[in-house]
């Protein structure tokens, strides 16, 4: 599903140049649940941003479902993001003045789907994350865990090929973290490919494969025995 060859990325700040990714090679097959781990500054977020087409690599190849992702202009990048990817952020990034249902419906709006169909689809995914009754609530009327579940529903709504989660549990307490992970595991069980960036070990071990990043290179890439989130609650 995801194929990355010799990816390099540096940031330039004035005269200093920071080489963040130093040749990443990395494949993800369909249906995998992968955790990308690493301390801060290891380049894990940068990798996720490149995977998410929010940022572009300096060199190297990136194929998403066999489609080469390169030389994107903003318009095409926007379309690809909309069609292929679902994002889950640490800080949820819900739009504050829209209710839960409208937030979930956002990607569908940009797909040009009709209003009625959009609402139905969004409602479907909102029910899937167990928040059907909260459809008309604004984000600030929801708890952290609920917000993240709305965000997950939003990421799922456009039926993307890959879900990208950047520290999805970073802002949550342990209990709600596990609830969110349970939800993510459930989605993965249905066959969705999911990448999670995290620096928490317990979260990482709830995935099926852990990739360790250090100073811009992959130092470890192992399949792990998945810990079901329910077992920890």
């Amino acid at each position, binding site marked *: 599903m995801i194929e990355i060859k010799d990816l390099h990325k540096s940031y330039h700040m004035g005269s200093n140049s920071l080489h963040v990714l130093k040749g990443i090679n990395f494949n993800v097959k369909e249906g995998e649940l992968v955790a990308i781990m690493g301390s801060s500054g290891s380049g894990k977020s940068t990798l996720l*941003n490149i995977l*998410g087409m*929010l*940022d572009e690599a300096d060199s190297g190849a990136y194929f998403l479902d066999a489609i080469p992702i390169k030389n994107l202009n*903003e*318009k095409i990048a*926007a*379309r690809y*993001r*909309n*069609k292929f990817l679902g*994002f889950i*952020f640490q800080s949820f*990034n*819900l*739009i*504050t*003045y*829209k209710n839960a249902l409208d937030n979930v419906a*956002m*990607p569908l*709006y*940009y*797909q040009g789907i009709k*209003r009625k169909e959009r609402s139905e689809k969004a409602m479907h995914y909102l029910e899937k994350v167990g928040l059907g009754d909260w459809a008309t609530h604004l984000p600030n009327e929801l708890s952290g865990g609920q917000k993240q579940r709305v965000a997950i529903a*939003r990421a799922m709504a*456009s039926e993307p090929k890959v879900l990208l989660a950047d520290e999805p549990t970073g802002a949550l307490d342990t209990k709600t973290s596990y609830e969110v992970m349970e939800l993510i595991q459930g989605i993965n069980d249905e066959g969705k490919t999911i990448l999670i960036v995290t620096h928490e070990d317990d979260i990482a071990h709830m995935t099926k494969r852990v990739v360790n990043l250090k100073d811009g290179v992959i130092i470890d890439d192992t399949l792990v025995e998945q810990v079901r989130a329910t077992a920890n609650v």
Partner: protein
Amino acid sequence: MFSRDRWNEILEALTANWFRTILTAFGVFWGIFILVILLAAGKGLENGVKQGFGDIATNTMFMWTQVASKPYKGLPKGRRYNFKIGDVASIREQVPGLLYISPRNQLGGFGGTNNVVRGLNTGAFNVYGDYPEIIKQDPITITSGRFVNYGDIDNNRKVAVIGEGVKKELFKFGEEPIGEYIKIQGVSFMVIGTYLKKSNNGDREQGQKEIYVPFTSFSQAFNRADNVGWMAITAEDNNSITNLKKDIIDVVKTNHTIHPEDNRAVGNFDLYEEFSKINGLFVALKGVAYFVGILVLLSGIIGISNIMLIVVKERTKEIGIRRALGASPWSVRGQILLESIFLTIVSGMTGIAVSTGVIFLVNKILEGVPASEETMFANPSVNLTVVFVALLILISSGLLAGLIPAQVAIKTKPIDALRAE
């Protein structure tokens, strides 16, 4: 682009902060309000001043004789002469494009002695010997009876049309003047009509104290032979009298053997030229109104642009989220532009509505005030063209106001936008 969802988005964004939206909108509201009010006030002043001209045909000149100032063909300078009735025919023949040529004779005048008698009542009035066309050049409203006609001219009838002011002085209240006789310098004329003259710059009272009699019977009764005192000449609408003036005067000079370069022999007053000058003044006034109005509007637009910039800055994160979810740059840009245009048009239209409301009220009040000759302000108004021009200015200025913020909004990379706190 104009789907319901798009409008929902815009309304949501604008209503997210009511107070700020209204403050912003007020700038444009105020600008367009000032523009419309200034234009209407200019129009009101114009209407008021032009009302002062009464109904007089403005494409008109008046011409009288003076003293020849140059000797010519053996005739000395300092010579007096008179227009003759034959001059009218030769002007009409030789100068095309003229509508009316009215030769006039006159008795009395400002400060004249009593010259009209009826029974025990006497009065000093202007008495004009006129052709029927004069009523089209210097209109009066006939309040009873009729005006002089060509039957009167052809038959030298001694009839008179008197002003309401004359009637008041010579007749008892409620007395019917028509069919009665008045004596003008000892000659009896029968009253056939009364009139009322519209306000003319401050001489409204004087305007009602005039008597019109047929030109021919005037000449006969007061021994004017074929002399003409002065002439009122009106050109057709598509010719200006100012352009024809020289030709007319040349005809008169030839007829009366006056040196072609004698500029003093024929006195004249060109009403059209005066009118054009005043018109020019109002064109300038309109220009000032547009200038000031548009500048005020501009500051409103800058206000909108400013606020949109802040809004874009504040919504950097939201824009980042939208772009992560697949909003194309044009979708983001379009959103900001539409928000700005929408805000400008709504506030601008409110401005137009409120200002026209104010104009309506002013008109209502002015209607209540009895028209006096001193009123220099009447019927302030703006026409539909101005409203459309304003609308056009609004749309383009909304676009202008949104342009820079929209550009700022898409310039930030989604990744940076997402990082913003």
